[in-house]
């Protein structure tokens, strides 16, 4: 499966539009309330965004996890496990609206920097503490748990929901205080970080990427390396937006399956798909 950057961009745009079909709501500030919101989106997309047609899977996990007598969302958890086993972190590279937004930010011509490696583990901490731990802890102690990641961290919520809603609702603008200031500061810091470190949020903070990434090594659709073709030119490593060396870490939890390495390889040694490419030549017909 060889997908050019232009085609991937088109898929990303289509996925963003399919997840956010109610574009007219952005001007009115009203929310879509149809039953499609029972379904989770594959990427990070706030369900309080006026344009959102689907629900955010992280929001769903926290909401159900924080509801008395539930504790864990088997529905959203099973949905993420299903996508993870099918294609690992491919949703990050192709279907996540916030991923697309970060890729567009990385077009700003600033010097590129690599992420300080220990920060890669921060997203697992986000998952354990803010997405799973705090909603469950407060549900057990106080009967109802807040969606802590949405409340204190999520920049997608600030960008897609808070900004359009504050622009269209004066009463929300008046109510905005310290918590909104914190979230706006996180968003602003992330915007700046994403300009010099491509996909900074995906690399360091995204709990959804952490869940999908854990499935990368065993997913059905995966990256295959044909060592007999590889000439170790390093083109794949230079092309990778996630700073991975696909020759050494072919199915790393950090790989978003964007296919940049595959497109950069002059020998076509990398192949994203279900099965390994068959390198055997068809025997020539001899009479």
């Amino acid at each position, binding site marked *: 499966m060889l997908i050019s950057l232009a085609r991937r961009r088109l898929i990303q745009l289509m996925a963003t539009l399919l997840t956010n079909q109610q574009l007219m709501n952005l001007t009115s500030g009203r929310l879509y309330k149809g039953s499609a*919101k029972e379904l989770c989106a594959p990427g990070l997309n706030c369900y*309080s965004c006026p344009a959102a047609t689907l629900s955010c899977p992280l929001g769903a996990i926290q909401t159900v996890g924080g509801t008395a007598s539930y504790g864990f*969302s088997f529905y959203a958890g*099973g949905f993420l496990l*299903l996508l993870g*086993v099918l294609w690992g972190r491919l949703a990050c590279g192709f279907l996540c609206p916030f991923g697309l937004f970060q890729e567009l930010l990385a077009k700003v011509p600033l010097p590129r920097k690599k992420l300080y490696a220990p920060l890669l583990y921060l997203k697992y901490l986000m998952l354990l503490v803010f997405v799973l731990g705090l909603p469950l802890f407060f549900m057990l102690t106080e009967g109802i748990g807040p969606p802590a990641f949405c409340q204190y961290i999520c920049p997608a*919520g600030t960008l897609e*929901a808070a900004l359009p809603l504050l622009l269209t609702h004066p009463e929300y603008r008046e109510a*905005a205080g310290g918590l909104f200031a914190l979230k706006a500061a996180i968003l602003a810091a992330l915007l700046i970080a994403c300009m010099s470190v491509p996909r900074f949020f995906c690399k360091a903070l995204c709990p959804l990427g952490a869940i999908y990434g854990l499935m990368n090594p065993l997913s059905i659709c995966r990256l295959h390396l044909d060592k007999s073709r590889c000439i170790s030119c390093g083109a794949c490593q230079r092309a990778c937006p996630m700073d991975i060396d696909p020759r050494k870490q072919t199915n790393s939890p950090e790989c978003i399956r964007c296919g940049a390495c595959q497109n950069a390889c002059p020998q076509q040694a990398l192949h994203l798909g279900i099965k390994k490419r068959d390198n055997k030549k068809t025997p020539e017909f001899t009479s």
Partner: protein
Amino acid sequence: MSLGKIRYLLLLLAIGSMACGLGRGEANIILNKAARVCMECIGLG
């Protein structure tokens, strides 16, 4: 156990988990939350 078997077991687990969640009405809880403005998400809650 081979990787293939683990994958198919995980697929079954995922589908079973989704069915279990739907069975105990989680979709309704998600819809109730998503159909209203989430004050926490916009930094007002």
